């Protein structure tokens, strides 16, 4: 299985808080794919855990790595765009 990797930015003025974490987890669960996220250069966590995502304590302006395990690049891109959208607040 190949992995699509991208970078997204936290634009939400409050940072990476509970609501975007919940929205991302919902999206990940619906996709049925394994998706990992983490600060650029840091450890990645499975994006199906809201607590794991919140525990990153992502701040406004910080960049995050997103990895999506899939063969379908178009689907991966759609998911990444959606995640970026959630992080706009």
């Amino acid at each position, binding site marked *: 299985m190949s992995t699509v990797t991208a970078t997204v930015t936290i634009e939400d003025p409050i940072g990476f808080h509970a609501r975007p974490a919940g929205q991302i987890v919902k999206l990940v669960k619906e996709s049925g794919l394994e998706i990992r996220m983490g600060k650029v250069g840091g450890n990645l966590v499975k994006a199906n855990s809201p*607590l794991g995502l919140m525990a990153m304590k992502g701040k406004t302006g910080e960049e995050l790595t997103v990895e999506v395990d899939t063969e379908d690049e178009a689907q991966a891109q759609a998911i990444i765009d959606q995640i970026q959208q959630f992080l706009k607040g």
Partner: protein
Amino acid sequence: MTQQVLSGLGVGLEAVTAEVFRVRQAEPLPIPAKHSGDIDAEQAKLRKAVDEVSSELESLAEKAGETSAEIFEALGMILLDESLFDSAVAQLDDGWEAGTAFVNAMETFAELLSGDPTFEERIADIRDLAKRVAANIHGIFLGLDLPETGKFVIVGEDFSPADTAQFTSAVVGVITIQGGPTSHTAIICRSKSIPAVVSCSGAKELKDGQMVLVDPVGDRVVIGGTAADATKAISFVAKSTEPVIPVRSNIGSLEDAVAAAATAAEGVGLFRTELLYLSATTEPTIERQIQSYTEILTACPEGPIVVRTIDAGSDKPVPFLKMPDEENPALGVRGFRLVRDHREFIVSQLEALEEARKASGREVWVMAPMVATAAEAKEFASLAKAAGQFKVGIMVETPSIVYEISKLKGVVDFISVGTNDLSQYLFASDRMNPNLGAMLNPWQPALIASLNQIAIESKKAGIYSGVCGESGSDPAFAVVLAGMGYDSVSSSRSQVGAVRTALSSVTHDEAREVFEAAISGHDSDEAKSLALTKLGEIAK
């Protein structure tokens, strides 16, 4: 059937008869414990509890409004977080029983999240989630479980904001053993027009299923009483179309402003601005403030609008102002005292109000809360006058400022008395202490004497005077205030009509007679009954 009378403090004017429903007190959770060795059974218990709490959350989300529903949804996802469950299973392996394991697992995450202001409230929420799961496992009852149908008078020690939010339509009356006339329960019951008797220590004896009369006008509960036993409220009959002094409304939000405009209120006597900030984690931009204020000012009932600058303290913190914990928040850095560390914020509030004043074309008066000295009043007046074209005033709620009103001549245009805080500071009685409710009764002779002195001093200094505390929502007390010489009162929105009618039923001289009757009372009961008797004579 023999009747038994329990006395307390009444809230509201209507009586109601219904069955007693005693609210069960939340039980404490058991202390952390180990399980007996059957890990699979513990894991099954945990899974079942998590699922049940998850469906409870779903039903709460359905009941809640749109914004809260999103919070419940996010909490639901946290509850079902697989890494959380895995970490709880690891706790089971260490020997902890299911409830303790889940609380411990959640605590690990709570610690990871702590120290970050973004998550402060969420941490309380997720700890509460863990508690709910543990309570479910141990069959412990945590919250209110009120009937949804039928008609009940609910009886409890006192009710928190979380409790009153769950009042169903089956709650037709409320009795609290503790709590005073300014307690949260009293304020909510008044605004929802639910008859209540608070500070009723005899209510401890009430049993489920007993029929009781909640008789707020008589300040009592009658076991076995019927509607026929209810004390008649003085029915004020308006003699003129205009009240002797204007009746304004208290507001705190755009919804309040819209609703107040539908009443007969003449302007707004207290616009509490802190509600706009209490939930903001970052300081709202000046543009955002101007927009909110313009919307609200535009919606207000016709007449002047008295805006109170931010009234926050460490017990009512505004997240972005970062207020350190204090031993005695009521006596701490609150209200206008915030000017020491947050002068720019107060100035930005005044500047936003000036822009909103121009945009709305309304007459705006501004006042500062918690002013203790004439020097502070002067400081606020110069800030406010530099910021815009307002009438400028202060709240009178500390005993010290009462002695300096004469020095406010030429400094401020008006004063507005906050009777709730004035009582708290005058009687050295914490508003939040449910045992001290009786001290906060507006009919206390010392409060009446103090209010009278404030009215006299203001008049001498040529300063306009008003009252915006809860006492201004009591129709009979509003007449007493008019008798003292106050220029206006401001009431909770639901009471504007009743207060207006009371103030339209008397002349200035008659209001004076009612005040003189009240001030001759030796205790709060006597003061009230003398005033009501006088009002009864006038009505004849």
